[in-house]
């Protein structure tokens, strides 16, 4: 019954008119961000963090606002997938496979409503799962010492690099870039500057927000300049929107199964929502078999990835909140938000600041209902957003990024650094080097080194201490398997590429 009393605390906070208003605003902005091609959840949340910070919201309010944006963006991603065949974000890629054919067959409205309901089912079940699993995992997390944390951080990099990228060596390079950047600045233990090259601006280190906004938002602008904003406008018309009750009923089990698959994929550190929607789609495809007609525009093919994707988004919050290890690119950005707000995620968060955790969970539940209402009857409003031309949108995004970063420190140095990260992000993405591990490296680098150094202080410099407990050995094994196994599985589990007309 502890769960219920905790939930009561949460709803007490989440149901205050002010918090409720923030949740609604967050959902609205989030859905728009998700729907806009080229602005995914990671970019969107990253650009908004500095602004929330300057608005002077307290920790819980800021967290409620940003997680509503996060959930909203997950819902919104499907709109451009279905209507334009352009995934609004990476996890929505799978939705294009059946969503776009369905829209071309004149059932765009049905596909949007069905995917909205599937998103709701996935996100709702995942939030329940988060509620049940997170406190249990928080208990386990108390057993973690520095050696275990070091192995856990390694596991996050290994699984992220192993599963989410096409080339292990490049993913490892990306992680090293991030970790290397995290080392810059004054060393916590000795108080001496490291790797600053004598530049005073670097003594505080490089702010992760500068890197995130540069790598995600500014790099996107360069991509649009390269493509001249092509392949954005061809779309399918949306006629009238009705509720396809029959399709929803028939996809019921699909949604439930996909939610479970997606949630599990989300909980694995480093795997995230893309893997969730992928696994959900693939497993439903094999259950349906040849006759299922997946890929030709069947309702189940729309429901499965959307339920999986949104369930994974909820699942990814579990390791983020309990262990401080994000499960996806966007949760990495949410972790950045927590760090900006001076909240340290981890088991202590559940005992010391229960109002933050349970307020967050309660507002996620509320946000879900708000999003269902917004995304089913009001979906036409968001479809209008798609007609914002890129030559207005992208300069706008750039300017918002500049103001956000400028408002953090008021120095031109951070802005120049951000442009530098944008250029770096462009080159790296061209070379198929994933950028999420860089973010993760910058965020976790300091903690990872601290864990290693504290472990060595405890053991007096004996390296075997890193492998001394059952938990840490397991984590090391999973890390190595997670990094190496995809090399051999890649032949069998080929990522489906985008279909083109």
């Amino acid at each position, binding site marked *: 019954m502890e769960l219920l009393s905790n939930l009561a605390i949460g709803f007490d906070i989440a149901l205050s008119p002010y918090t409720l208003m923030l949740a609604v605003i967050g959902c609205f902005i989030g859905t728009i961000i998700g729907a806009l091609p080229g602005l995914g959840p990671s970019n969107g949340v990253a650009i908004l963090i500095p*602004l929330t910070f*300057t*608005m002077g919201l307290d920790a819980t309010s800021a967290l409620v606002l940003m997680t509503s944006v996060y959930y909203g963006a997950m819902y919104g991603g499907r709109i451009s997938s279905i209507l334009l065949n352009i995934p609004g974000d990476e996890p929505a890629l799978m939705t294009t496979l059946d969503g776009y054919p369905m829209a071309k067959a004149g059932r765009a409205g049905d596909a949007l409503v069905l995917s909205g309901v599937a998103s709701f089912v996935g996100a709702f079940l995942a939030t329940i799962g988060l509620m049940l699993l997170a406190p249990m995992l928080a208990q386990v997390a108390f057993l973690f010492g520095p050696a275990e944390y070091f192995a856990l951080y390694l596991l996050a990099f290994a699984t992220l690099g192993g599963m989410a990228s*096409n*080339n292990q*060596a*490049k993913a*490892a*390079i990306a992680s*090293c*870039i991030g970790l*290397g950047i995290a*080392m810059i600045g004054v*060393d916590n*233990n*000795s*108080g*001496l500057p*490291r*790797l600053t090259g004598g530049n005073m601006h670097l003594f505080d280190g490089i702010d992760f927000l500068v890197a995130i906004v540069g790598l995600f938002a*500014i790099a996107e*602008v*360069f991509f*649009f*300049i*390269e493509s*001249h*904003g092509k392949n954005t406008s061809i779309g399918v018309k949306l006629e009238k929107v009705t509720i396809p009750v029959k399709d929803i009923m028939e996809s019921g089990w699909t949604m439930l199964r996909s939610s479970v698959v997606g949630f599990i994929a989300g909980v694995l550190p480093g795997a995230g929502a893309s893997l969730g929607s992928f696994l959900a789609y693939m497993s439903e495809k094999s259950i349906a078999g040849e006759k299922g007609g997946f890929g030709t525009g069947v309702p189940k093919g729309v429901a499965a990835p959307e339920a999986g994707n949104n369930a994974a988004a909820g699942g990814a919050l579990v390791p983020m909140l309990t262990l401080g290890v994000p499960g996806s690119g966007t949760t990495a950005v949410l972790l950045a938000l927590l760090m900006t707000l001076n909240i340290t995620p981890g088991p202590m968060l559940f005992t010391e600041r229960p109002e933050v955790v349970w307020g967050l969970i309660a507002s996620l539940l509320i946000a879900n209902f708000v999003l269902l209402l917004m995304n089913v009857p009001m979906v036409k409003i968001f479809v209008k957003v798609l007609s914002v*031309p*890129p*030559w*207005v949108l*992208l*300069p*706008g995004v*750039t*300017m*918002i990024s*500049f*103001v956000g970063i*400028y408002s953090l420190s*008021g120095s*031109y140095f951070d*802005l*120049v650094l*951000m*442009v530098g990260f*944008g250029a770096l992000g462009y080159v790296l993405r*061209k*070379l*198929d*080097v994933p950028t999420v591990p860089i973010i993760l490296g910058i965020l976790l680098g300091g903690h*990872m*080194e601290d864990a*290693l*150094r504290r472990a*060595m*202080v405890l053991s*007096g*410099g004996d390296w075997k201490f890193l492998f001394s407990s059952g938990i840490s050995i397991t984590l090391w094994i999973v890390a190595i398997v997670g990094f190496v196994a995809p090399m051999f599985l890649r032949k069998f589990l080929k990522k489906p590429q985008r279909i083109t007309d």
Partner: protein
Amino acid sequence: MASDRIFGAVVTLVALAYIASAMQIQSSFMADPVGPKTFPILIGGVAALCGIIVALRPDPDPEWPVLATFGSLAVAVVVLVGYAYALKPLGFLIPTAITASILSYQIEPRAGRAVLAGIGLSVGLFLIFKFALGLGLVPFPKSLTG
């Protein structure tokens, strides 16, 4: 092929330079067993190794844009860096209008619409930031308004 070989070589060189500068980190007298050098050197080592692997086993080349596109990307970078320096001394409105127009023109080369987009974004965003979010932005150069 060539891109990845160059990339791998650059990563290896940068990683070696990183290790070299990590060697220079001063230790304090009360150092812990690991010290401030070890972890950076470890990272540099892994990066150098992976750089060599990428250089030896390159992926197929990506589709690089033509030279003219590279030119406009370089222009975009220069404009953005200039904007970063101009924002403080020149106020928000004028640099933002100019930068947004240039970026808009680069995405879709129609001068009239680009200028309109630039001015619209500059004024619109200023109003939102100043009055809806309450950020302390300076609209014009200080020397003009006194």
